[in-house]
């Protein structure tokens, strides 16, 4: 199984995302933002970073990159797609996921190991978890506050589309402590914290993040 990892100008975490995909037993394939070519991949990860320098709004310019047109089509056809941090911002800008990520409520850039509760294990990226499972993975962002209108929030809650919430104090002012959400179909997931930095205890706080990447493998071979 091939997992594509997109590199935009300003992407930081593409190598860690590719490493995580490889650790999970999939083949990582580099995708370039300027190429409208998905190289036959079965799933795609939009990694973290500061694509296009976060100019205009985070993810606003990346969303129109040539590779995104192909990715949006494939995701609408059911291809698993994970957006981490800046990737989550791109997914919201592309309207593959509802809402938007805005500046952290206390304005600080946060970088910490964050406890999360997994609240949906039926998506392509979360089947290796148990509902209610608590995990610790790094959170590092300046604009991670998930915002949406009341109707959208009620819909997300009602349909069980919140896949992870922050445990303890709300780090960034996200509505209902939302750390990650999915689309109606469950193939597209956006997550603000970074599972790709927590795939083994040599380089991360835990190995809890690896399950996101093994989930997609089992989703595809099922």
């Amino acid at each position, binding site marked *: 199984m091939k997992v594509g990892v997109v590199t935009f100008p300003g992407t930081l975490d593409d190598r860690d995302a590719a490493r995580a995909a490889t650790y999970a037993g999939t083949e990582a394939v580099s995708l370039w933002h300027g190429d409208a070519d998905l190289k036959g991949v079965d799933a795609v990860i939009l990694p973290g970073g500061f694509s296009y320098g976060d100019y205009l*709004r985070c993810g*606003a310019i990346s969303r129109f990159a040539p590779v995104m047109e192909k990715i949006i089509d494939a995701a609408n056809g059911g291809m698993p797609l994970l957006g981490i941090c800046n990737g989550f911002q791109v997914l919201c800008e592309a309207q593959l996921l509802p809402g*938007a990520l*805005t500046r952290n*409520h206390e304005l600080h850039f946060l970088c910490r190991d964050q406890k999360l509760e997994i609240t949906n294990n039926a998506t392509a990226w979360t089947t290796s978890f148990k509902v209610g499972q608590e995990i610790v993975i790094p959170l590092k962002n300046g604009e991670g506050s998930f915002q949406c209108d009341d109707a959208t929030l009620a819909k997300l809650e009602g349909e069980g589309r919140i896949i992870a919430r922050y445990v303890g104090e709300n780090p960034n002012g996200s509505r209902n402590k939302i750390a990650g959400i999915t689309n109606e179909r469950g193939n597209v997931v956006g997550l603000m914290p970074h599972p790709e930095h927590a795939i083994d205890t040599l380089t991360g706080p835990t190995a809890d993040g690896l399950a996101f990447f093994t989930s997609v493998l089992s989703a595809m071979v099922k």
Partner: protein
Amino acid sequence: MAKIVVDVMLKPEILDPQGVAVSAALPRLGFNFAKSVRQGKRFEIEVDGEPTTAQLAEVEKAAEKLLANPVIETFTVRVEK
């Protein structure tokens, strides 16, 4: 030459932490007039000659698609002489 100006603001219900920070800084400098502050973005777009109705309609479309995110922001388009 005329300019087309697009002002983008966060919707009133969206928290604006930058505006809050500015609002908190003002009284520290002795400026006590502000009840609240909200911070936005301004785009100045130069065109040749007087902007046409068609151009303004295009700018509206561009503002909707790129300059503003309608999920969290509102925008206005106007001509400045």
